[in-house]
């Protein structure tokens, strides 16, 4: 049985899968896989078909299910218990300038809170915290940043 703790938005679940049964926070759910080229593209539960498309990008898993897209993140893996959580980095996607920092380094921040405002391509973009935690700012107001630069980390 592989198991992991996954988070989507405010919800987090301990979920393990063995064969055609899943344990979701201890609740057993039997399912059938529908495969296309080895990928799971459908999951049937109690006779109901759910269309599935899934993709993974680093730590994140994207799942489209019956028309709705969900984003999951692994919180802590049961099978890799003891591994240190690396925290979450915020990376600059393109060249720009830090217009304002809205929090102080080391401050406790809530998920969704605006950390800083980046100006890029003549537009202002609010950078929000992806999680509750302590913020480590890696930039200061007025800094010019290149693409790929770490702006902050949430611990």
């Amino acid at each position: 049985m592989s198991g992991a703790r996954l988070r989507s938005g405010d919800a987090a679940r301990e979920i393990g899968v063995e064969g055609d049964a899943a344990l979701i926070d201890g609740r057993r759910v039997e399912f059938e896989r529908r495969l296309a080229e080895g990928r799971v593209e459908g999951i049937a539960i109690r006779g109901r078909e759910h269309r599935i498309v899934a993709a993974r990008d680093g730590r994140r898993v994207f799942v489209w299910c019956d028309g709705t897209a969900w984003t999951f993140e692994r919180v802590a893996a049961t099978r890799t218990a003891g591994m240190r959580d690396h925290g979450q980095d915020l990376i600059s996607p393109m060249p720009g300038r830090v217009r304002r920092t809205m929090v102080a380094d080391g401050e406790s921040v809530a998920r969704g809170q605006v950390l800083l405002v980046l100006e890029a391509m003549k537009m202002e973009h609010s950078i929000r915290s992806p999680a509750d935690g302590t913020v480590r700012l890696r930039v200061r107001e007025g800094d010019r940043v290149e693409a790929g630069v770490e702006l902050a980390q949430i611990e």
Partner: protein
Amino acid sequence: MRRLLVANRGEIAVRISRTAREMGLETVAVYAGDDANALHARAMNRSASLGPGAAAETYLSIPRILEAARATGSDAIHPGYGFLSESAAFARAVGSAGLVWVGPPPEAIEAMGGKLAARARMEAAGVPVMPGSRPGASSDADLVSEATRLGFPVLIKASAGGGGKGMSRVDSAADMPAALAEGRRLASASFGDDTIYLERLLADCRHVEFQVFGDSTGRIVHLFERECSVQRRHQKIVEEAPSAALDPGLRRAMGEAAVRAASAVRYVGAGTIEFLLDADRQFHFLEMNTRLQVEHAVTEETLGCDLVRAQLEVAQGLPMPASWSDGTLVPRGHSIEMRLYAEDPIEFLPRSGRLLEYREPSGPGIRVDSGVERGSVVGLEYDPMLAKLIVWGPDRPAAIGRARRALAEWVVLGVETNMPLLRAVIDSEAFGSGRYSTDLVSRLPRPAAGEPPDAAWIAAALADSAPLGARGDAAPAAADPWTSASGWRLG
């Protein structure tokens, strides 16, 4: 005309090249340096780089585009919408270079480009114009007094603006000085001209526009209306044809006014007259868009026509299709367009990333005009619209059912989009009834994320534990030079 350069990117560049190819034309794409792998750059017979730099130095650079046309042996240019499509200078430069300009005469662009002058011209042509400040009013004192005459709230607009950009609402005389200063600053920064004017802001309005079309024989017709009241941030996200707000009498009156408006500037080609329809069923001219509109597809679906084909024909001096001017053109059924934006569905802020999966709906009554595909990189450099879903059905309820079904087939993974908002609009009682106004989106409950169903949790667990490199996963970073440019990534 043999080789058409499409001076644009994204879905409209692909859409234009499709019709051009169907007509047997060769098509030429242009692309900014960072756009060399974009779908539109690969979709045509030839392509030319516009060099490095932001939009101002590439898609907005007249010399670079003309040089690309020369280098590729193009003999005509279609500007699409946005970018240089409403630049009279570009239209003139294209003509001077001996190329066919697929757009209206530069004089018509200019006449409608200055919104303040256009309002006066339309008034003179007998087109009802939205009450606003008189043309001479430019000082703070004049504008405050005009605002008081019009009655608050009022809208501040840039004369050189358009398309809902740079508008702001003022609710009282006390707020006017600060708002005017900010309005002039924005107008100057965005459009290079700080001239502003005021319009009365009416509550409970609908935004209804008419497609107009002229050819070189001087004929000008309207091709019926589009209902564009579903907006966020003053920009349209869902459009439909016909409008549930019009009866035959009002449709005829507005259509005639639209033809008068276009005739006043001797219009040739495809254009759009935008009206505001107030709660008392009075209509008011807002502005004319002297180009193809994003939402032109709902007109095509209900009328059974191809506006881009007609643009290309008329640009070559051919007359418009006979059925457009002989009175036999009748809309059939109902069409709805939904714009997919890479943005969060609540605050509408642009999002970037890579489309790890992208699958379009298909089947009866479905059309997708897309500028992206699986693997496309979505940046913040350009307009965040990714694609348009256009549905057609024999009647409005059938079209809504089809829209719901098609939205539920559309797979977009890896970049956050406004899909939840589109679904909320289509599912809303207000949209379903057809009785809604421009505040529809603001009246919707915020789309709640809710909790994933069991099937999604299970699929996530399966994908999370799958070996890397299996199908459906992102390519390993080493094999993909674009990963590092794929936007806001949570490391």
